[in-house]
């Protein structure tokens, strides 16, 4: 850690590559299925062989439009593919087919919730369609590199934000929101570990209050939210230290290794940046008819912002709870299913954000692979609501369900005999035993004035609950104790 005497402000913008979940490539009928043997899904078009002609995938156009509609953006009804020329072995054509002057998606915006619970708008500059490159494998093939072109030609949208974020947490909040938008739209599987979403972060710093932007660097290909947050914080610190030590930031591309937490310079941008773009002569302008737009607009699912509003207005959740629960598609779906099955949205919110989140975290699992289904959790909540079990016993039942000891809450409650005791006579009998075993405390209680008794009764409640192995109804225990103690 270092300490800075000056107040600095970071300015962050993102470029995000989102792999579209089409069945085939953007310009060819080769499959995009993940995990195939090397080069078995790379056809002559993907390889850029002479005499081939690309034809644009209809579904890739639809998905890009859906993204545009999802961020309230203008859709450019005439959009044009261009060639970005550069030389690299994983790009056999010698150019990437992309969009520059006329991208399919124009300016839009995404709203995020900040730590202080205020809303912050991140503007999207534009989003364009392009093809992915292949993969270079730098393993040792007797001094050669191996190239797998299965990924070449996979459709991507590249989303470019305005520099509207001021710290790593905002950038991560934005990235999570974007993840939720593309998965809700069903245009991307969102699997970051497989590279389905890749983030490039542009970072610069400037003295607080200064209008002019500092020189920025670009850190490429961050594929987890955790790495992204760390890489940004590290880069902000590096730039501030550098400037305070009298140095200057140079515009460059950097690589961050999440496993070692080390970032290094990859190449400085000045020399390489001549891509000689020109409109691709093999492809005509793509024209989007109004009828297509209207059809897609009608098919739009409920977006995360709308879902959040519904959680607040219809289900009565707090702003914060609604934001967290709508923040990821799988979580939102799980929560809603559990709330429906259990008949109580607030209780479901507490469980999903509390016990369930904690247990998932401890086991390093995603909610999509949670061993307790939303319906089963709903069933458990229903038993809390109808007083079959207390909230405390419910955690025990949940643990058993997690371990697979029973198909549903009722089975576990039955098998373990956890049903709450609500029989007055039975509870009274336990209380009598407790009082008989603790005559001193009873004496003290009866000698105390009213103000102190409230606290003192807790001891007896605790003893009674313990004696009932947690199964006595706590409300009834309280009531009966007060009556008996006088």
């Amino acid at each position, binding site marked *: 850690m270092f300490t800075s005497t000056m107040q600095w402000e970071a300015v962050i913008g993102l470029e995000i590559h989102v792999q579209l979940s089409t069945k085939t490539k953007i310009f060819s009928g080769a499959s995009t299925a993940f995990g195939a043997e090397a080069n*078995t899904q790379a056809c002559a078009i993907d*390889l850029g062989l002479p005499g081939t002609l690309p034809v644009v*995938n*209809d579904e890739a156009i639809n998905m890009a439009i859906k993204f545009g509609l999802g961020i309230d953006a203008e859709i450019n009804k005439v959009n044009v593919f261009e060639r970005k020329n550069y*030389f690299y072995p994983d790009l056999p054509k010698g150019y990437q087919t992309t969009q520059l002057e006329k991208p399919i998606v124009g300016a839009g915006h995404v709203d995020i919730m900040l730590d202080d619970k205020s809303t912050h708008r991140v503007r999207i500059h534009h989003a364009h369609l392009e093809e992915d490159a292949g993969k270079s494998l730098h393993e040792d093939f007797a001094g*050669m590199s191996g190239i797998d072109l299965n990924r070449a030609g996979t459709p991507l949208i590249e989303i470019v934000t305005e520099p509207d974020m001021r710290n790593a947490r905002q950038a991560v909040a934005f990235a999570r929101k974007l993840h939720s938008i593309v998965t809700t739209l069903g245009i991307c599987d969102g699997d970051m570990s497989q590279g389905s979403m890749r983030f490039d972060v542009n970072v610069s710093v400037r003295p607080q209050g200064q209008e002019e932007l500092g020189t920025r660097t670009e850190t490429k290909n961050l594929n987890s939210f955790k790495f992204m947050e760390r890489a940004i914080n590290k880069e902000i610190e590096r730039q501030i230290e550098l400037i305070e030590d009298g140095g200057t930031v140079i515009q460059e591309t950097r690589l961050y290794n999440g496993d070692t937490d080390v970032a290094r310079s990859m190449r400085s941008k000045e020399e390489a940046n001549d891509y000689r773009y020109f409109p691709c002569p093999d492809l005509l302008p793509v024209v989007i008819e109004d009828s297509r737009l209207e059809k897609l607009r009608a098919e739009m699912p409920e977006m995360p912002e709308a879902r959040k509003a519904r959680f607040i207005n219809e289900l009565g959740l707090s702003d914060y709870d609604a934001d967290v629960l709508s923040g990821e598609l799988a979580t939102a779906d799980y929560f809603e299913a559990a709330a429906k099955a259990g008949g109580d949205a607030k209780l479901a919110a507490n469980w999903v954000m509390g016990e369930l989140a904690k247990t998932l975290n401890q086991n390093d699992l995603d909610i999509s692979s949670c061993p307790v289904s939303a319906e089963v959790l709903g069933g458990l909540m229903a038993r809390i609501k109808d007083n079959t079990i207390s909230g405390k016993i419910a955690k025990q039942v949940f643990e058993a369900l997690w371990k697979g000891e029973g198909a549903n809450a009722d089975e576990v409650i039955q098998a373990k005999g956890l049903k709450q005791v609500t029989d007055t006579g039975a509870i009274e009998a336990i209380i009598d035993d407790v009082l008989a075993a603790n005559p001193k405390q009873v004496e003290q209680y009866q000698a105390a004035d009213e103000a102190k008794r409230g606290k003192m009764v807790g001891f007896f409640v605790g003893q009674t609950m313990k004696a009932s192995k947690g199964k006595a109804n706590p409300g009834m225990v309280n009531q009966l104790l007060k009556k008996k103690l006088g």
Partner: protein
Amino acid sequence: MAIDRSTVESVAHLARLSISEDEVRQTTEQITSIMGLIDEMQAVDTHGVEPLAHPLDAVQRLRADEVTETNQRENLQANAPAAEEGLFLVPRVIE
């Protein structure tokens, strides 16, 4: 606009083309003369004219998102100078 030899050399480098001293001289002359033609076109008043993305007055046709290609790895790699374990081999890329 005149094109100098260093521009030709740098464009050749970007395209990974190796050109001889003679070719550099020749290409510089040729491109300079092409630039002369472009200068003439630049002089035309194009105010209010939409930039043209394609000379054909037509619209891109789209294809349905269905797999139509089959695995042709063996055929395609028969043309490659080197392949191993299903991968195309290229001179090592160091980054």
